[in-house]
């Protein structure tokens, strides 16, 4: 709990040039060593303390190069935590740093709890007594907040899906247990290797599906990059404000890092939007005007979603038509705003221009049409999937790491069963999978197995 090796992103979230993933603990150097490929035969486990090394991080599963990095190795006890510490400097940006973190977590580190580096520094005698109370407050406050965040996520589909998977495993476990503890009860079907393979394969497939959603999770981790465009005074800032107010900004999904509320991130019905250059909107009200047509086209091209705003109370202009031309072929939602004022716009023309896009009419001032807009955003994002209602997206680094571990352990279970290892022994891996999944939703109580045992089977003397 305390002496294992922990890891976290230790630079603020954002678009810095460099980000740092820090590891602390006995295994820090070994874990980083497993992933690091330096120049020549250089191995991190051999290098001197307090040195920095250039190289690449390799995914040991696929041998794929993940990142170009500089790695600092600091051996205990002369470090911040008095434990072995490794700092991996990688390229800034959420995607790369998250990938590095996940790699490290998959390799055996545990995601640090809020304030845990500081706590370790304290526990190892690095911080003096006067700071003790402060540390305790920190742990309590941050844990509570992290728990609240976690609880928020609990209500989601992810938790239901995980619960279902766990129940599936639990029933299997109870079945195996009953065979062990009541070997003579003939009315309990004997759990066979074949049945176990079926169950394990199912669980594995489901976990893989979940992890796949995390792959396309760029969107979920980074947000769907969204640009609001339109002529001056069509209501772009109102739209921004409306989205932010309605949905509040996203709170960091990585506990332990201090990325607080970032206003440019909003969560619309589960779709995180990263509103690009929104600061620009606030300052000049008009991105097109501010950075010129060429530059703005560039920005538009990089966007995942365009919110194109038109003025209901004004006639369509050439500028509007140009914007339509600029966003052709992209995911666009056309918003005809200011319906509280008398109509001047030619709606037929708008419909023609927007025939490949979604069209919503709003009065942001009077809060009319916002629901439809959000619906449009959500349905656009989830489009393409057959049954969007069933998709569960995993976006939290901790969850992804746990899912990866769970996947590994169910794969080991599967290998074990296929190799003919006795059922009660491979069960070790089933239980581990079950516990790891439980950690995602904050449940790992062992007693539930025993409860399952007695509710599922009729036992006794």
């Amino acid at each position, binding site marked *: *709990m305390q002496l294992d090796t922990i890891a976290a992103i230790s630079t603020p979230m954002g678009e810095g040039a460099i980000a740092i993933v820090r590891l602390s603990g006995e295994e820090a150097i070994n874990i980083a060593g497993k992933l690091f490929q330096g120049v020549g035969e250089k191995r991190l486990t051999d290098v001197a303390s307090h040195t920095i090394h250039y190289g690449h991080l390799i995914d040991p599963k696929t041998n794929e190069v993940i990142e170009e990095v500089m790695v600092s190795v600091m051996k205990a006890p002369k470090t911040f935590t008095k434990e072995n510490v490794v700092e991996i400097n990688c390229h800034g940006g959420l995607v790369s740093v998250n990938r590095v973190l996940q790699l490290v977590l998959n390799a055996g580190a545990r995601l640090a709890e809020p304030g845990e580096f500081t706590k370790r520094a304290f*526990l190892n005698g690095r911080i003096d007594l006067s700071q*003790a109370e402060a540390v305790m407050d920190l742990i309590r406050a941050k844990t509570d907040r992290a728990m609240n965040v976690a609880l928020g996520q609990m209500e989601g589909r992810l938790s239901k899906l995980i619960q279902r998977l766990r129940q599936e495993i639990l029933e299997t476990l109870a079945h195996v247990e009953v065979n062990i503890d009541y*070997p003579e009860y003939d009315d309990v079907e004997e759990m066979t290797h074949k049945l176990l393979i079926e169950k394990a394969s199912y669980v594995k497939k489901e976990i893989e599906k979940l992890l796949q959603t995390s792959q396309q999770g760029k969107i979920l981790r980074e947000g769907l990059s969204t640009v609001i465009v339109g002529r001056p005074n069509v209501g772009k800032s109102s739209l921004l404000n409306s989205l932010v107010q309605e949905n509040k900004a996203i709170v960091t999904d990585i506990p332990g890092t201090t990325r607080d509320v970032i206003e440019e991130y909003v969560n619309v019905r589960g779709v995180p939007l990263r509103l690009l250059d929104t600061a620009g909107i606030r300052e000049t009200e008009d991105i097109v005007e501010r950075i010129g047509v060429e530059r703005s086209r560039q920005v538009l091209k990089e966007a995942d979603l365009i919110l194109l705003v038109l003025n209901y109370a004004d006639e369509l202009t050439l500028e509007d038509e140009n914007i339509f031309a600029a966003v052709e072929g992209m995911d666009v939602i056309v918003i005809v705003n200011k319906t509280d004022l008398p109509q001047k716009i030619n709606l037929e023309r708008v419909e023609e221009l927007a025939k490949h896009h979604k069209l919503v009419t709003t009065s942001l001032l009077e809060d009319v049409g916002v629901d439809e807009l959000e619906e449009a955003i959500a349905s656009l994002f989830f489009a393409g999937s057959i049954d969007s209602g069933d998709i569960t997206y995993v976006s939290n680094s901790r969850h992804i790491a746990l899912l990866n571990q769970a996947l590994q352990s169910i794969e080991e279970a599967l290998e074990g069963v296929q190799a003919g290892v006795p059922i*009660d022994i491979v069960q070790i891996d089933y239980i581990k999978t079950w516990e790891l999944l439980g950690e995602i939703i904050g449940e790992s109580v062992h007693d539930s*197995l025993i409860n399952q*045992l007695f509710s599922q089977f009729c*036992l006794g003397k």
Partner: protein
Amino acid sequence: MQYEAGNYDVIVIGAGHAGAEAGLAAARQGAKTLVLTINLDMVAFMPCNPSIGGPAKGIVVREIDALGGEMGKNIDKTYIQMRMLNTGKGPAVRALRAQADKFAYQHEMKKTLENEPNLTLVQGMVESLIIEDDTCKGVITKTGAMYYSKTVIITTGTFLRGEIILGELKYSSGPNNQQPSIKLSEHLEELGFELVRFKTGTPPRVNGNTIDYSKTEIQPGDENPRAFSYETTKYITDQLPCWLTYTNEFTHQIIDANLHRSPMYSGMIKATGARYCPSIEDKVVRFNDKPRHQIFLEPEGRNTEEVYVQGLSTSLPEDIQHQLIRTVPGLEQAQMMRPGYAIEYDAIVPNQLWPTLETKKIKNLYTAGQINGTSGYEEAAGQGLMAGINAGRRALGKDELILSRSDAYIGVLIDDLVTKGTNEPYRLLTSRAEYRLLLRHDNADMRLTEIGHKIGLISEERYQKFLAKKEKIEAERERLQSTIIKPKKEVQELIKSLGGSELKDGIKASDLLKRPEMSYAHIAQIIPSEVELDDEVIEQVEIQIKYEGYIEKSLQQVERLKKMENKKIPIDIDYEAINGLATEARQKLKTVHPLSIAQASRISGVNPADISILLVYLEQGKIARVSNE
């Protein structure tokens, strides 16, 4: 009229499965021990099923034996049938189970107690304890005898305010119509102990001469019976079979029609029963889709015709029991000799105990067995042994012995009890052990002989034998790890005949053994050992090599556990003074008083955040002490 009756180091109240082990363990460590029982004819009596062992429980018996306890030896001398269960499964869950000659069993145990030099066995009913300054100093019996001692162990089983319930009938009684112990229960309450009311039950017994066995299936013992004790050399080969039959729709109809007369359903029984030990009426109601339930007919001994009807545990009225029995194939003409019944009794809420089984409230007072909320002879004996060891050591001025969850099932059992308490009679199950691959039937001696020897319960001779065995295992393991098997023709042919894939290259013998189709015997065929190895050595070598990867995984978990266990919490810790603990956690911590961070983290309601805070607080205290110096 009270009189002074003597001075002892240790007094054990009760001579059931817990009391017998407790008395012997204390006496064998050198403590002058008195064992008091309400009825001398009931020493180590089996009021319920005439069997010992089974999954988890059988491993406990092996552990008791490895620590120098008596249960294994006693059953080895008195079984009528021995079976190894779960042989088709992995080594971690194999377990022995013996059918006992219950009368021989109790006579044999009584003889052992009587012949133990440091032990005095006396009939007497203890009604109160002698307590001074919250410390137990002795006991007083109904007849006025005052015995003084340094420590006292209570092992009263189901006798405390016992009440037998049979249909509409309810009367004050211990098990099997023994005298109940009422005053002692009241006394414990006065001392401030929190008691709970639990319930258990037993099925009727029938006369074997009236059973038509041709309608049942025979369940014989193993052809080559094995022993519980590592010291047993003589095996009983003359075994008696058990018999299997089933209930049917008529049985179930009778139960359904008479549920209103069942004390379970009429509300007469309020105490908590165990889910793993349901009565037949419970099974029929809860699992009403099941067309039949198994009934095992188990002989109660060699010199009796009484047969235990396992699976028909009931508290229905006697007249209904007569009808019930006769619906079962083979029992149509069966004559019921004793009816089944339910029994309610007082138990102590076990989180009032330290992991040594000493009570937190009264110093030098220990409790063990069913009084601590468990059920089962083996669970009782395991606790009795540990309470006997610790009460004995206390009396002799030695330090305590606590088994960890990674040492033994006994460790799991006691830790569960004192850390989590229990809201139903507690039974060991293999699933309660996190490290069951390490806590095997076969390696109980490897795990515990060292400890047993250290505390003086394992003789030097046995210890030397154990060391020799250990050495042989090591040597053979090393040999297999360092010998390369080359892909010679006869090797390839052997592998092919077993359905494995041929070797491409030379391979370590140990790696070849890891293949599922290979056994030690196959390896020995290719590279025979120069020294003769007995089966127990071979079993160890085979398991240790074959399941190395999984064992390694478990050991890593244990390593983490040990680190947390080494973080001790001082007994005088003031939880009120720790800022930031959640209210529920604070209350639980105050009640349980965990001795280590590991134990604290197992308490339900104590969250990781609370543990973090606790760690910081403990560390703060350490720093504070250092800076004061």
